[in-house]
């Protein structure tokens, strides 16, 4: 039975050895001639049709069977048996593009039944350990490795590969290549390696001061891209330098030995590009044009602040809003990792700066174009309030979609915006990559020193939540115990015993964890503003 997923005419090199690094590269290769189908050009045309016409076309993948009886995990150098790449008889939806499998191996089931959204962990950032599962693994190094610890031999020399070569995919020639023992294991590159058991392999990363940017060139069609960084990130963020040139990204879940659901550039739902990529893993990335992917180690993060004290009689003036916001802005400016983009006060602070373009706003050019946004002004359970009639006074919760450009954290020095009875339902839809919102469950308060004190604590390495409740403990004036500060944070894993985004630090001052867009769960916490009478 013919396998419609198999390309033809593709040249593949396969090595059959016990340890792929004890033989000179390419000494026992056989050239495998594949049936000839210009699949990449075909897929580009499909993409073009989809993009131009905007038509979602149901996949027509043809039969899922195979015409060879390969034993999973064993290299099969026989003609026509090495590589499986999707082909089809008709138009294919972008999210249904199926990347190549390693030579001599086929999926355990139909590609239509793919791995989950949260694959098996490939890297433990606490110990810098790469984790291999029995079978094929598609792995990468999250950062540059130290000299002497950066070759395939140094890293995988102790792995029983059951006679399989370690492989990489050449996107330029669309060829698989066996890796030699002295080949460098480089960031942004992905390696297929077979493990005849489970392994935990320590990676010796270069110290921070020696880490530099990593670059890889991606070609039209399929490429394998290693994830960069020791912390997970949305596909959208990881692949941001590629702009619109990337179409899909597909991970491989070594735990279930199958591909994950593809992430589609601009996609939604299970194909959303706001789903997570994880360190230690590599991904098939389908490109519609050539592009360099450049990731730098040292990054600068941006923040902004807006405040309203003068409501022109529509509301009571809010004392100290300016000093609180400016104190925050000026203090964080002292960080070498953070750059202030703008601070607007009174009439210059506008609702449109916080409203998503889908609702007529321009937040993608303002607050959502920064990583951290701080607001001081009046608020209520439905949102927060501005003082100018230039546009809408009220930023309602259902007009906010934060993080679909850049924003990770929002801090609202506004009364009742995170009210316990309403905030989870109200604000959940605003999380489009956002990690958390800090604010008040009840009436809050302003103080000239609260902003700089909050920023100072952030830069001391306190978590955002810790810094916020410490600042409000200190500066919200003595009360009858009814005033409470609050945080609404994305929860990623559904595990009640892990804090996830509740324990985020700002970048450069501790760990944080990137949530997907539309996180499935949330954690909400309140803390009484201390010091009662």
């Amino acid at each position, binding site marked *: 039975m013919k396998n419609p997923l198999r390309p033809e005419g593709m040249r593949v090199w396969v090595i059959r050895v016990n340890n792929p690094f004890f033989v000179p590269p390419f000494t026992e290769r056989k050239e495998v001639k594949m049936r000839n189908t210009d699949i990449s050009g075909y897929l580009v045309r499909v993409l073009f049709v989809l993009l131009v016409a905007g038509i979602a076309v149901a996949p027509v993948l043809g039969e899922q069977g195979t015409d060879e009886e390969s034993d999973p995990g064993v290299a099969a150098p026989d003609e026509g048996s090495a590589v499986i790449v999707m082909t089809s008889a008709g138009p294919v939806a972008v999210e249904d593009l199926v990347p190549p499998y390693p030579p001599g191996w086929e999926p355990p089931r139909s590609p239509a039944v793919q791995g989950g959204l949260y694959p098996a962990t490939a890297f433990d950032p606490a110990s810098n350990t790469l984790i291999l599962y029995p079978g094929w693994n598609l792995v990468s190094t999250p950062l540059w490795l130290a000299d002497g610890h950066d070759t395939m031999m140094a890293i995988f020399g102790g792995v029983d590969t059951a006679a399989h070569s370690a492989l990489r995919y050449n996107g330029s020639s669309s060829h698989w290549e066996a890796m030699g023992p002295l080949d460098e294991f480089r960031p942004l590159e992905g390696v297929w390696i077979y493990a005849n058991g489970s392994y935990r392999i320590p990676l010796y990363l270069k110290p921070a001061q020696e880490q530099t940017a990593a670059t890889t060139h991606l070609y039209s069609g399929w490429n394998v891209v290693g994830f960069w960084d020791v912390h997970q990130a949305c596909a959208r963020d990881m692949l941001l330098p590629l702009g619109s040139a990337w179409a899909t990204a597909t991970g491989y879940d070594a735990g279930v030995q199958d591909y994950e659901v593809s992430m589609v550039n601009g996609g939604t739902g299970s194909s959303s590009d706001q789903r997570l990529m994880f360190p230690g893993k590599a991904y098939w990335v389908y490109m519609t044009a050539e592009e360099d992917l450049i990731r730098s180690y040292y990054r600068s993060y941006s923040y902004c602040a807006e405040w309203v004290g003068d409501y022109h009689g529509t509301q009571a003036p809010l004392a100290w809003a300016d000093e609180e916001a400016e104190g925050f802005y000026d203090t964080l400016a002292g960080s070498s990792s953070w750059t202030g983009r703008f601070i607007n006060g009174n009439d210059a602070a506008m609702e449109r700066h916080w409203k998503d373009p889908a609702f007529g706003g321009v937040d993608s050019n303002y607050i959502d174009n920064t990583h951290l946004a701080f607001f001081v002004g009046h608020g209520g359970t439905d949102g927060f309030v501005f003082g100018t009639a230039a546009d809408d006074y009220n930023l309602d919760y259902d007009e906010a979609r934060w993080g679909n450009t850049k924003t990770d954290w929002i801090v609202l020095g506004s009364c009742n915006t995170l009210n316990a009875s309403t905030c*989870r339902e109200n604000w959940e839809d605003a999380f489009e990559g956002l990690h958390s919102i800090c604010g008040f469950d009840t009436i809050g308060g302003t103080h000239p020193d609260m902003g700089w004190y909050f920023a100072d604590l952030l830069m001391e390495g306190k978590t955002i939540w810790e810094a916020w409740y410490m600042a409000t403990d200190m500066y919200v004036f*003595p009360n009858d115990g009814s005033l409470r500060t609050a945080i609404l944070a994305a929860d990623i894993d559904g595990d009640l015993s892990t804090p996830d985004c509740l324990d985020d630090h700002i970048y450069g001052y501790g760990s944080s964890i990137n949530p997907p867009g539309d996180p499935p*769960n949330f954690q909400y916490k309140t803390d*009484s503003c201390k010091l*009662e*009478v």
Partner: protein
Amino acid sequence: MVGKQIAIGFTLLLLLVAGTALIPAVSPPDDEVGHGGIEVLGPYGVQNISEIAFGTALPKYPGQAMVYKTVDTAVSKDDALKVAEKFGMSGQIEESGRRIKRYVVKDDPYTFEIETESGYMIYTWNDRYSGVDPRDGPENIPTDEECRKIAESFLTSHGLMPEGAAYSGVSHGEGFFSNSTDGTSIQTYKDTCVHFTDTLSGYPVAGSGIYVTVGGGGDVLKVGKRWRDAEPYKDFAILSPEAAIEELKQTGVVTTIGSPKKAVVEEVKLCYYASPPRDEQPYLKPTYYIHGTVEGENETGTFFQYVPAVPELGKGLY
């Protein structure tokens, strides 16, 4: 002729530019008319109240009360070590902080920090206080009364209960986990914060006190202290409680209830008001703390407010 044409053209250009600039002013967006979608609370939630009733008899206070002069608090390294030792901590002391300098002692699982300038200190069981430890589920929290005993016992046995501190009440921190897919929400965390307030001349000092946060199994998760040292200055004439209520009509009330219609005073007590650290406050002035219930259009709740009681020293809290 040419000059006249230029002048006319220039005038027309000016009119065009001015007219364009005025468009937003003369044509406000529809949203302006629709303002009011969010129920807004005032600064600090202070809102005017038109009717004030009494739910309790007003207390009697002397016509005079002592005004205290604040004393600067500076913490040395030795001071910090002594306090850390009271907590039973023996770890290395480190100086940290940026604008706020503080001494830090870490002795797993606790961290002790004290600010050098203000003396503000916190002692925290870090991993527990993040709020996701299963030990701190709401079912594991002792009753408020038990928490009070635990807190008093902890402070007393460690020599940390300040002279003049008096129990003032409890509050709770809470944590919830919600699943946005099925809309379910469960409470995963609860703590009980037991507050002890400083007293001067037998009156509590709002903003000066110590608290103990008790978690699951009665474990102490956090201790915080913000204390304003002061010495007697001199006696001043103070407002009567009745006069303070009249002032309340001017100051408004602090409440979570929007558009309050009627306030019922349940408690009036004389206290002192201590500002946050770093606020210049030369004196601690007698102040009335007024507390009660408030009725809004569709809901009821509580209110409170502080009313300075020494007319001679002005209407500011500090």
